[in-house]
């Protein structure tokens, strides 16, 4: 999650997010160069004492400042398109999970091998333990194995929501009646937070997403726990 007063992007937890950070750095460099050029031009013009009142056109410079931005746009667009198609690539996913948006919580289904389903509600202020993040913690997290290619099918049950996890570079609209596919791969163990990103009603700001990336053995243990009827009953979850 972000630290207080953080301005930049969070550290990447997936290969796609790493590429997005590189692309962001590339475009930011181009923007800073252009901005510096503009500020320099403005400074020089303002501090100059010469005035030419009858300037109407300058065909050569107009051509130059059309062609050069076109080249700059190509320099930005080529990596952008490459990244765009990279985000859509799905490399033989080993696990498929479904994420369904409701007003105002998420429900998840792991139906590949077993039938695991649970709802994920935001923890209200009164239920937080000391040090928990307000508006971000949930009662049941999405537990996934690390370094595993996962397919996430995102949909909604009522209105449009959006399933987002910025650390993993993920954002996909959850549209009722439609299945959208996301490719997810966590590169490191950790907890990654996100929030609903499509206005969906009064509690739109209060339906977060939490992904817990764990080693495969821990994930298997979690699955066993979820399948165990007794522990499910104590956790008040359905199977």
């Amino acid at each position, binding site marked *: 999650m972000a630290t207080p007063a953080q301005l930049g992007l969070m550290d990447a937890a997936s290969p796609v997010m790493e590429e997005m950070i590189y692309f962001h750095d590339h475009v930011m460099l181009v923007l800073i160069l252009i901005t510096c050029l503009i500020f320099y031009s403005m400074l020089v013009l303002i501090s100059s004492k010469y005035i030419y*009142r009858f300037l109407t056109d300058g065909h050569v410079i107009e051509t130059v400042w059309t062609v050069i931005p076109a080249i700059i746009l190509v320099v930005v667009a080529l990596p952008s398109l490459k990244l765009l198609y990279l985000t859509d690539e799905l490399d033989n996913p080993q696990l498929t999970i479904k994420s369904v948006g409701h007003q105002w919580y998420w429900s998840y289904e792991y139906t590949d091998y077993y039938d695991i389903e649970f709802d994920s509600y935001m923890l209200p202020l009164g239920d937080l333990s000391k*040090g928990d993040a307000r508006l971000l913690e949930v009662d049941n997290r999405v537990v996934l194995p690390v370094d595993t290619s996962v397919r996430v099918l995102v949909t909604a049950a009522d209105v449009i929501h959006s399933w987002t996890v910025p650390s993993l570079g993920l954002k996909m609209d959850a549209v009722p009646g439609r299945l959208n596919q996301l490719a997810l791969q966590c590169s490191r163990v*950790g907890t990654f937070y996100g929030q609903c990103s499509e206005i969906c009603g009064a509690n739109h700001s209060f339906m977060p997403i939490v992904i817990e990336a764990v080693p495969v053995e821990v994930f298997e243990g979690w699955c066993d726990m979820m399948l165990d009827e007794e522990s499910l009953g104590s956790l008040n979850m359905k199977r």
Partner: protein
Amino acid sequence: MSYKCMTLLRPFGILPVGLSHVAHVRSFEFIRFFLAISIQNCRFLNTLSQKGRTMAHQLMRAVPRLVARRAFSTSLARAGGGAGGMPAWQVNPRNVYEDRPDFPMPNVPYVSELSDAQKALKAKEAGDWKSLSDEELKELYRLKFHKTLAEAEAPTGEWKTVVGGTSLIIALTFVLYIIQKKYAMPAMPETCNYEWQEAMMKKQLQMRNNPVEGLASKWDYENNKWK
């Protein structure tokens, strides 16, 4: 096309030339050609009738003449000022005195209606300038110009008003905000107090939050202190 048609089209400044002819002429020469025709047509209109001394007719005759003269030469346009008894600013709206530091050459003199003494001074100016005293030279300058270049370029101090007004409004905004915070806004949640923030940071360090360049990368886990 017959000569009669050509005569009818003359008042509009259009000669029935073919497009190919126009295309071969450079744009500037075409404009001069068009204006020359306009001037000829204005003279042609004048000869049409001696009637039409109403304002509308005078204007109709004056405008093409003035546009043509203005397009050719500034001095000719200025000489046209006051035509038909109209003041200079009515004839050409640009004939208004203005002190412009970036273009210190006004179109008209500052004082246009001279008193008898001023007229006498102007007549003296027509003679040898060495006979003019310093005071007379300054008087002549002030007849032509309102301010000297130095006076026109002198700072007005307007920036102080702007900065002062803006600062006052920002200060009032701060006062309003403090009043709102004290009396109207609800209390902050307990997650914003220092102990909770400290506990949150400890949890984030335990979770290895942002270990590459962010928070956890600044913590020395072996020695349990910041790097």
